[in-house]
């Protein structure tokens, strides 16, 4: 009796199939996380209710997605990542490497990112880009301001949570970092009110995952602070890439590790360049319109 074995390409790559299954499982865990559910419910309520009648500029109503999808999303993914620590001795001996599991965790950030995109569309519907509430920015810069304040933080916050969960053991790290970032953004915004034309203060204001670009002027109108919203998006995306790479670095070995470190260095340099371009581009001084 003879047996004939036929070899051919599998329908899908086993690595990709495993990654897809892991990512689907982690995504299911995220969307059932009570903190994330609360954040999404709050954003839905805020965007359904619409901005206050007496709104004077966009920055009074657009930080909510960054706080709730980004900040709360960071806490949710941090817990998601940490919750696997207890089962690490069992999970660690499976054929799936830790970087592959980390990549699957990073993939869940697509959910808050999609929520951020929907929030942006609803925000533009509530306050059209042609509204004077955006200040003296050009129409494309207005879109960039919104993308940088609504969509990218919704992506970056959860990615930061995964990186934090991979490297930090302290269980309260997520809320401490959330408060530190919130305090930093508040501090540099208040300092910018006092020194709106300072280049150094502009760098400090943009040296954050979220930044305000406008302020209601007491004399009437909206003041746009210095800085380029487009390059700021580049800086934010560089931060996202750094968060992913730092998360993937945990457990990476051999050539993969050296490749991640090399890419991390490139991303770091790109982040610095983009931060400088963000601070020096756009308006070179505060402009009121």
């Amino acid at each position, binding site marked *: 009796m003879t047996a004939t074995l036929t070899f051919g390409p599998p329908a899908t790559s086993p690595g990709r199939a495993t990654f897809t299954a892991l990512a689907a499982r982690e995504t299911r865990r995220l969307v059932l996380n009570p903190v994330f559910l609360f954040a999404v419910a709050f954003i839905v309520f805020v965007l359904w209710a619409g901005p206050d009648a007496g709104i004077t500029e966009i920055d009074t109503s657009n930080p909510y997605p960054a706080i709730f999808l980004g900040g709360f999303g960071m806490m949710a993914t941090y817990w998601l990542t940490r919750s696997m620590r207890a089962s690490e001795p069992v999970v660690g001996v499976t054929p799936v490497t830790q970087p592959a599991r980390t990549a699957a965790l990073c993939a869940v950030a697509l959910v808050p990112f999609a929520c951020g995109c929907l929030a942006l569309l609803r925000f533009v519907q509530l306050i059209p880009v042609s509204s004077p509430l955006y200040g003296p920015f050009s129409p494309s810069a207005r879109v960039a301001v919104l993308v940088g304040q609504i969509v990218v933080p919704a992506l970056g916050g959860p990615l930061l949570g995964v990186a934090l969960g991979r490297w930090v053991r302290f*269980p*309260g790290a997520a809320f401490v970092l959330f408060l530190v970032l919130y305090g930093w953004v508040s501090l540099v915004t*208040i300092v910018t009110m006092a020194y709106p034309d300072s280049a150094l203060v502009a760098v400090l204001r943009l040296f954050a995952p979220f930044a305000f670009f406008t302020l209601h002027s007491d004399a009437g109108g909206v003041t746009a602070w210095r800085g380029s919203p487009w390059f700021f998006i580049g800086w934010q995306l560089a931060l996202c890439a750094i968060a992913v790479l730092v998360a993937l670095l945990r457990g990476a070995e051999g050539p993969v590790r050296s490749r991640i470190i090399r890419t991390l260095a490139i991303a770091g340099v790109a982040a610095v360049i983009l931060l400088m371009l963000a601070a020096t581009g756009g308006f070179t001084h505060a402009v009121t319109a």
Partner: protein
Amino acid sequence: MVGPVLRAGAWPAVAGVSGVAVVVGGCGVAFPAAATALFPICFALLAAAAAFTLDEPASLVVDVTPTGPVRRTQIRAVALLAPLAAGALVMVAAAMRGLALPWASAGLALAGNVLLGFAAACVVRTRTGEPGAAVGTAVVLVLMAPSLVPQVARWVRTFPVPGADGPSSDPVWWIVLAVCVVAIATSVSRPRLRRARPLLAGSIWRRPA
């Protein structure tokens, strides 16, 4: 008795979060214009630090020792001195810098924040041995709600703001203090870890010889 119970406390977490709070409060002192934004963050961090004082990684063993929860909670309450001292340090620095804050109300808010974190930890400690992370997060989110969502600040304020319109924070904190005292008294009178005990009793102590 006191020494081992205190040594087993989550001192790195309590001291670390209190340290971050001092840094945030210090920035508020250095930049007085930002004080009303940064001091609530500082106080929320101190409340979170207080939530870690009851963390007990060995709770499955500790909870069946003859030392009762009242005594253990009393000893661990000593650790509250760290966040209280950190808050007092920030307030003294702010006073020396000449910040015009309602100091009595700020002191009440500091005590209320720290006691709220501790009381919430006492309540959750009856269910789990390490309530710090979950309670800290919950307390921070509750305390920061007026800052994160300005609409909430129209109804409730957790930090006194000089000369501001809107509700005062004092009634909130007096009510919180009273509720916290009741919650602590109730929680320490209960047996600890009601869910974990049967598991422990069945799996270890009643193992057949």
